């Protein structure tokens, strides 16, 4: 007996799949399944987070609906996966944020943006807020750098603590001793697998999305999104280093590293999420957890807005709109940070951890000591 109905269904499917095994070449889920003959709640949650939702196993399955065996692995694991996010949320009191995630994230984002706008308005008169500021330190006329760093540092730290606590809960659920996370070859393998999205490709031909024709569009747009996000993060990190180690204050000229990284990343973070959203729009509903569409959409829109507001700030920073745009951008980024542990962002964390475990299991099966 399992904790939830969806895990009961996942168990039924894995029993079907384990007596078939045709899909073992498609991704990591089925080889992981083959290492077992019976499935605990933790095993099923591990499979759910290992699944990248490429959909190939649905299209390739001779028992998918309308067959009476009704085998739909991508959808079942998607539901179990979203359930697991709520179950691992820290503190537990906030797990409800996953229930109507699209709405929750929207409200938090709106409140965050509003807080920055009101904050700016409250601390400054109209002249400062709508004035034209240029040159180094222009942004900090609206919000002192130390205040900005303290606020965002705290938000970021909070997100990290909450995410670490979530990973701890996941790791316990799947039954691994904590120390096992530290296995460098397995971590390196997982970095490679995640970095290439090795399992988001239907075993080599691409994802299936709206019909049985595979395509690489989701993978490409995910890469643009992920690496775009990475470049934006690198931009912020370089800027922070400039500020504290070289006493160089933002905004920086267009050719400087933080702006180049941020612009490239920003472009990726515009095209990527837009493409992912378009693919999601077309996606066959039978493959997805329809009740949780809001969570996916909210995260994609937040990433898109982060980039859009950042790019707008870059292009209009020498105008009177700078103050309002800065408030908007900071509001969006702040809400992105604080909602990270309570939205779709966690998929990357849990999936990475699942990949580490999978790499470790593969190494054990191959006879390597770990």
């Amino acid at each position, binding site marked *: 007996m399992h904790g939830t109905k969806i895990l009961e269904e996942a168990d039924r499917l894995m*029993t*079907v799949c*384990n*007596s*078939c*095994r*045709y*899909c*073992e*070449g*498609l991704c990591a889920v089925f*080889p992981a399944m*083959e290492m077992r*003959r019976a499935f605990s709640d933790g095993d099923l949650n591990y499979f759910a987070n290992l699944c990248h939702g490429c959909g*190939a*196993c649905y*299209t*390739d*399955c*001779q*028992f998918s609906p*309308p*067959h*009476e*065996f009704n085998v739909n692995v991508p959808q079942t694991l998607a539901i179990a996966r979203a359930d697991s996010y709520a179950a691992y949320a820290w503190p537990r009191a906030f797990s409800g944020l996953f229930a109507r995630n699209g709405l929750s994230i929207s409200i938090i984002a709106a409140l965050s943006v509003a807080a920055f706008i009101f904050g700016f308005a409250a601390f400054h008169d109209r002249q400062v807020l709508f004035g034209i500021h240029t040159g180094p330190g222009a942004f900090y006329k609206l919000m002192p750098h130390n205040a900005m760093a303290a606020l965002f540092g705290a938000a970021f730290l909070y997100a990290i603590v909450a995410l670490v606590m979530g990973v701890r809960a996941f790791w316990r659920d799947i039954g691994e001793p904590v120390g096992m996370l530290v296995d460098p070859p397995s971590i390196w393998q997982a970095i490679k697998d995640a970095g290439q999205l090795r399992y988001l490709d*239907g*075993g*080599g*031909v691409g994802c299936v999305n709206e019909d*049985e*024709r595979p395509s690489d569009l989701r993978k490409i747009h995910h890469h643009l999104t992920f690496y775009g996000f990475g470049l934006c993060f690198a931009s912020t990190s370089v800027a922070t280093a400039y500020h504290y180690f070289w006493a160089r204050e933002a905004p920086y000229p267009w050719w400087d590293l933080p702006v180049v990284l941020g612009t490239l990343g920003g472009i990726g973070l515009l095209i990527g999420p837009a493409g992912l959203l378009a693919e999601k729009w077309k996606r066959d509903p039978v493959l997805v957890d329809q009740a949780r569409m809001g969570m996916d959409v909210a995260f994609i829109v937040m990433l898109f807005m982060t980039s859009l507001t950042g790019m707008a700030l870059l292009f209009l920073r020498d105008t009177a709109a700078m103050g309002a745009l800065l408030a908007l951008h900071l509001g969006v980024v702040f809400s992105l940070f604080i909602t990270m542990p309570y939205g779709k962002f966690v998929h990357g964390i849990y999936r990475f951890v699942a990949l580490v475990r999978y790499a470790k299991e593969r190494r054990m099966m191959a006879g390597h000591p770990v």
Partner: protein
Amino acid sequence: MVDLKRRFDVLVIGGGNAALCAAISARRAGASVLVLEGAPKFYRGGNTRHTRNMRCAHDAATDILTGPYTEQEFWEDLQRVTGGETDEELARHMIAESKDILGWIVEQGVRWQPSLGGTLSLGRTNSFFLGGGRAMLNALYLTAEKLGIDILYDAEVLDLDIQDGMFLSATLKRGDADVSVRASTLVAAAGGFEANIEWLKQYWGDAADNFLIRGTPYNRGSILKMLLDKGVQDVGDPTQCHAVAIDARAPKFDGGIITRHDSVVFGIVVNKHSARFYDEGEDIWPKRYAIWGRLVAAQPDQIAYIIFDASVRNSFMPTLFPPIEAPTIGELAEKFELDPATLEKTIAGFNAAVRPGTFDHTILDDCRTEGLTPPKTHWARKIETPPYYAYPVRPGITFTYLGTRVNKQSRMLMKDGKPSANMFAAGEIMAGNVLGKGYAAGIGMTIGSVFGRIAGREAAQNARN
């Protein structure tokens, strides 16, 4: 929309591996092609949906095959499983052509992978489809669509107009109306008649009511029947088929691969009178699994039970339906309404006959019985560790061997022995040319791909002349 008023070069009836290979090969040879699949789109492809590998000869190991499998060895395997009941010329031709199929099928979009977990013993001889048979089909259909082949689903053919061994047109059911489809040549690749219980009953009597059909309910043999009725020469014994023992709890149709049992060699098999009836340890399982369908079909009420104990519970692949469990043999018997005393006696007799040996399921080991009829010649170990388990099994029919006789061009032969002017056959509808009886894993797909490719090529050429 498909223009049904035009005259096609090649009409392919069927939608599985053989049909698609024929359609693709004809199209690549320049012909216009229409494929009529009788099933709805989801169930397209007949038995190919449920397949997982193909047996092809190869002279050296490949990325996915662990060693060479020569034409000669393939031929010897075929001779052994069929007991020599095969057309040697056709069979050797097929085996020779199979070498080329390994690469050709990849060019049509199909992907290979090494043998699946739990099937290591096929790793040298059989190439597995990445994602299974439906993935293979999806790839072939995609290629067919890209090449501009017209495909219709739910396309039931009601009649064939054949005169003096020459195909003229097919009558196609479209909604309430019947449409006549004309083509210069016909490739019949519409499978056997295994899902047609009434037809099976002609040869098997009421026993056929207890058969389970491993594939879709659409394999009714209607095209085969039309061809045989209209002068095409038949081949094969109508009672012969590829049949395996599958779980008695499986659905009547389309249970596919997951209802099979690999556990026979680990225990004993008894009928409803609790009596053993065949040597469970005759040979390595993949070489022998295909005889068990017929063996069970010959038992009273077409039911049998695989019985084993806790010591081998995890020695074979996990099954869809869990084994029935009981703490004693007597209680196990009661769960199946077998006579407890008789089953206890059968198992006691078996245990007493088991000689000591070293168990190894990967080779023909020395664990055997002595003084028992029938004997268990390998892997015989006492059934004495509770709890005890049993799987009820019934005959699971994969496909029938009665078919249309063909020559090396895959061209149908008429009853007078003359080749048809423009009719070809490929796949299970003509498997009886190669398989007089018996089965070797993956050979159905070899027949489909090899003869499909030949039939398409020949039909395209025939259409041009």
